[in-house]
């Protein structure tokens, strides 16, 4: 499939819309203005909430949002104003909705470049490394609420 200039640039660098959307959502919803890029290699976490958002349309695949336990708890604390001590159904559901909102914002940016995509409801799951993707990049950020890493795994629709 031949892509137009803007679309090609957008898919070559999907990192940028995901970073921008995450920054906007964190600023608006969590009042976090210290969102900074961090190298993917530096993101190491054994205890995390993995939220997968399936993508369909001109791009097909998934984006896995990796929220370390502490980040998840901090984010929900900021939103609810309540002390939260463990990652339970309430926390994973709130975090999943944030992943859903960020992904929805990215779709709006892609639509601006005439790329039509849709997203599937969030699913809690570990990443499946058995599949190959034409677009494979990680967008990791650090904030005062903790780190987050977005694992982008997409193919162009045939």
């Amino acid at each position: 499939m031949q892509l137009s200039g803007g679309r090609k640039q957008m898919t070559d660098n999907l990192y940028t819309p995901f970073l921008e959307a995450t920054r906007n959502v964190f600023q608006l919803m969590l009042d976090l203005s210290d969102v900074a890029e961090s190298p993917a290699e530096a993101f190491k976490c054994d205890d995390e909430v993995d939220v997968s958002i399936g993508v369909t349309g001109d791009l097909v695949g998934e984006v896995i949002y990796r929220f370390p336990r502490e980040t998840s708890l901090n984010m929900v604390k900021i939103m609810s104003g309540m002390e939260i001590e463990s990652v339970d159904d309430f926390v994973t559901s709130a975090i999943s909705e944030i992943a859903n909102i960020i992904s929805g914002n990215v779709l709006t940016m892609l639509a601006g470049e005439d790329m039509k995509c849709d997203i599937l409801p969030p699913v809690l799951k570990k990443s499946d490394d058995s599949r190959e993707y034409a677009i494979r990049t990680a967008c990791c950020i650090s904030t005062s609420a903790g780190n987050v890493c977005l694992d982008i795994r997409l193919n162009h629709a045939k």
Partner: protein
Amino acid sequence: MLWKDKYELGVPLIDTQHRELFQRVDAFLQTLRESSSWEEKVQRVNETLEFMNGYVVEHFHDEEIYQKKIGYPGYEAHRKIHAEMVRYVLQVTAEYKQKGFDQQLMQQFAGKLLAWLINHVAAEDQRIAAYAIERGAEADD
């Protein structure tokens, strides 16, 4: 306290309803998350849920009337977002009753509701305010 002053749109009716909605969701979360047993709090959770369901529909309706009144260009898209949320709330409430007041389902519902409401009021609804201000400025010209 969930409410923040930055959520204000400058439209008294909508701001009052938003404050009320946030207070209701706050009360719902406080009850749901308190350390007492599920048996002890389920009745209060159900009462708050029932009231909130009615209030969400009423607020969305009033907000849509306001959008129409000012000729908000994003009215149709915004109405769809409201309709999807109402559908989700009704579907979860029905499933919750059918499952005999399942706690896990209610915790999941509360988590999504919290994040959805904050984003909706902090982002989507602010666009209505921005349009109303712009329109007001134009009218003054």
